């Protein structure tokens, strides 16, 4: 039994890793510059200095790496949250985390913090905004030492409404210059020039994956309900707290580096669960890999479908993800 299951999991992982490599290679080979794939080995062999080498490794590769980190982080955060809340409609954005991050970035733009401390102000303010919301939601939902998951969900939704209203307020009161700064950031893009931030995102999301793995069995038990999990010897409060903070960290990281990219955290965990089942031991890593591939694929499409336009990657994730999701749901007749 165990042997058969592990064999199945290895196959799933193998397929997902192969898909990730394939998608990444595809992303490396496609783009507006029209470099034919056949010439790529030659360009790589030729080494640094040429414009084409620069396009491959200074423009395309960083986007692929960031797509890997952000896609993985968002998808993992979604998996964790859906596991804690036992609610398939929860995603990183439902908890108000992204709303808080947007608010942080808007404030940064309006009060010109980026003028003081440089571009790094964007991710920092986004992350601080996310943290503020997390603390707020968390504080409101803590009652007598236990975290009320239903309460958290409602509070989160409300907070996200409040923060989007505040963002609109800021926009209504701000000048066009600030406005379009906000829009750029909100649209979401993997176009991050600062390689340090890219690597921070990679390390952060992979670190999140490692930490989450220590809680996969706890989440399996939580699928039976919180009381059942207690009966199985799970420290439910600690698990919820750690995982909630972890998911918030992953979301805050993604939102503050890449802006708002929706749907990945909602759709990918779902689709993957259809193949792997609900066992978080395989679900976490599969969702991470699939989210990474999905976002890299979407970004490649975003920068190639309507040339020379570059679409916001969130548009593509929404359209493709939503369509695939509806199709899969109708096929499986899964009730939400």
């Amino acid at each position, binding site marked *: *039994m165990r042997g058969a299951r*592990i064999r199945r999991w290895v196959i799933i992982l193998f397929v997902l890793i192969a898909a990730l490599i394939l998608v990444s290679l595809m992303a490396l080979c496609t783009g507006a510059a029209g470099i034919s794939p056949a010439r790529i080995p030659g360009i790589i062999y030729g080494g640094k200095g040429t414009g084409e080498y620069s396009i491959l490794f200074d423009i395309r590769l960083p986007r692929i790496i960031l797509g890997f980190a952000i896609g993985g982080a968002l998808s993992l955060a979604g998996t964790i949250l859906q596991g804690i809340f036992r609610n398939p409609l929860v995603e990183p954005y439902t908890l108000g985390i992204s709303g808080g991050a947007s608010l942080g970035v808007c404030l940064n733009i309006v009060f010109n913090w980026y003028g003081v401390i440089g571009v790094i102000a964007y991710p920092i303010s986004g992350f601080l905004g996310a943290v503020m919301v997390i603390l707020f939601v968390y504080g409101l939902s803590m009652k007598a030492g236990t975290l009320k998951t239903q309460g958290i969900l409602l509070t989160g939704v409300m907070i996200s409404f409040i923060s989007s209203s505040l963002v609109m307020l800021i926009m209504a009161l701000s000048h066009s210059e600030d406005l379009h700064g906000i829009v750029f950031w909100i649209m979401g893009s993997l176009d991050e020039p600062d390689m340090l931030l890219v690597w921070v995102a990679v390390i952060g999301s992979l670190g999140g994956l490692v930490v989450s*793995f220590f809680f996969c069995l706890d989440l399996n038990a939580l699928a*039976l309900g919180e009381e059942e999990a207690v*009966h*199985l010897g799970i420290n439910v409060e600690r698990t919820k707290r750690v995982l909630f903070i972890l998911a918030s960290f992953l979301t805050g990281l993604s939102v503050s580096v890449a802006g708002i990219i929706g749907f990945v955290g909602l759709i990918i965990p779902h689709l993957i669960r259809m193949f792997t089942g609900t066992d978080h*031991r395989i679900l976490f890593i599969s969702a991470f890999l699939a989210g990474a591939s999905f976002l890299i694929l979407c970004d490649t499409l975003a920068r190639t479908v309507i040339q020379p336009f570059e679409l916001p990657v969130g548009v593509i994730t929404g359209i493709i993800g939503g369509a695939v999701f509806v199709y899969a749901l109708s096929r499986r007749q899964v009730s939400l």
Partner: protein
Amino acid sequence: MKKTLLSVENVSSGYGGELILRNVDFRVCQGELMGIIGPNGSGKSTLLRTVSRILRPRQGRIHLDGKDIGGMSHREFARKVSVVSQSPESAEMRVREYILLGRLPYFGKYQFFETDHDEALVERYMELTHVSRFKNSMMSEISGGERQLASIARALVQEPELLLLDEPTSHLDITHQVQILELIRRLNRELGLTVLMVLHDLNLASAYSTRLLLMNRGSVFKVGSPEEVITYRIVEDVYETVVLVEKNPLSGKPCVFLATEEDMRKGKKG
């Protein structure tokens, strides 16, 4: 005198500001099969939830094997006490995987996969509880009775010293009621498992329990053998209903008959 396994000392407990249990005090001995009975709202489930550490007692202490349960880690407690709840969740997982979760309290900190020993235990208890025939079905697709059996198998896999059950036979037909209670009795007799279970049905409680605990308004009304607890005086007092208590001709255990208003009018005339 048998050794005391569970001692509940002067425990008060409840939700929010409201106290539901007041000064509950009783003992369960090793090898006993104790049934908790009482009217709706008398605090049966609250008592079970307090003993199973879902609720923290406001006052008093609960000892298991002489050790305060409040001081145990979650895992330590789960290795000693397992709980079968009223209606187990219909999670999206296979029956076998579900039962395997019962081995979680025994997993090491960096252990992610079950050992051969775990697998063997799961197979053994699935046989014992007659779960094997549907072990590959999804938990959401089996019947309520089957789910209850699976839940008991999961609890047994935890290899507990004390098994707590909260109305394991509610929502089940008599075939399944008897099947499950017979199983519990066998576990009690053959494995020496100590059982504390809430039962709604007085006759089932009387038939299967070695001792009964009658709750009323959050306090213990009476503890004793079925013959001592189920008398028409006590039952009428606590349940505020007119009943007839006779001996079951087969077992000799007390058996409660309801008296409807019409029956009583006829009875008076006759």
